[in-house]
């Protein structure tokens, strides 16, 4: 890999890791279902950008774009289903608190 590409990869990688940390922390700490989905979204976005950067520095832009489009489709479906589940749980428990989901035990 050329020096310029490597430097570009490191710069992007630095900020991508920080975004990933934001998403991971949100997912670990939050007790609200919608905020947990938002944390998951941040994680996916960081990974998506990393794939695009890798495609750019290696010259395989077409392949990485195809992969990213697939990831975006999966991301949307996961978000919609998770949002629907959160809504159903809210209607059932009148709360978005994750701790209220222990009624699934058994």
């Amino acid at each position, binding site marked *: *890999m050329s*020096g310029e590409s490597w430097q*570009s990869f490191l*710069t*992007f990688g*630095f*900020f991508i*890791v*920080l*975004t990933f*940390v*934001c*998403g991971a*922390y*949100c997912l670990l*700490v939050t007790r*609200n279902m*919608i*905020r947990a*989905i*938002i*944390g998951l*979204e*941040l994680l996916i*976005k960081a990974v*998506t*950008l990393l794939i*695009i*950067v890798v*495609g*750019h520095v*290696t*010259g*395989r*832009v*077409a*392949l*990485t*774009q*195809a*992969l*990213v*489009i*697939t990831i*975006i*489709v*999966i*991301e*949307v*479906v996961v*978000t*919609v*289903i998770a*949002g*629907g589940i*959160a*809504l*159903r749980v*809210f209607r059932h428990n*009148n709360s978005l608190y994750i701790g209220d989901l222990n009624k699934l035990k058994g």
Partner: protein
Amino acid sequence: MTIPHISIDTILLFTMVAAALWTVMGRSLLKATIGLAITSAIISILMFRLNSPLAAVFELSVCTGLITVVFVSTISLTKPLTHKEIVELSKERHKRFGYLPIIIIVTAIVLTLIKIRNNVAVAPGADITADVRQVMWNIRHLDMFGQILIIIAGALGVVILFEERKRDEW
């Protein structure tokens, strides 16, 4: 005094992390959703700048637009908190999310100190000059099949989740 060279990409990346931080730290869910949309929009600009226009268009239209609409719809269908609940929750949130800026700063310092050597060899591939449409329809056509299945599964899931039951069968 010389001003260090800061590229547009660096400014965009810095804004992206700031928007992500605002998304996580924000008190209101609606503000968090707007922060997520801003993060997504910045990522799509970066994708345009990295010669990936098709992925950028998908990111902008689907992630910035559709997912924001989904989140806003979900939030609007849930009950808003009372003032007392907001005050109680913000104290608790402050305790839990207050560590995030510190963690971000520590991670940034650690990443700055780590020296990574450039010994990555790029394996030769056949698709370096290929067009994205050619890759999607000829090389990765199984992905397209998987995407169709996922969309059908998602549609069925939405139908099951949102269908109104006449009586509580469970």
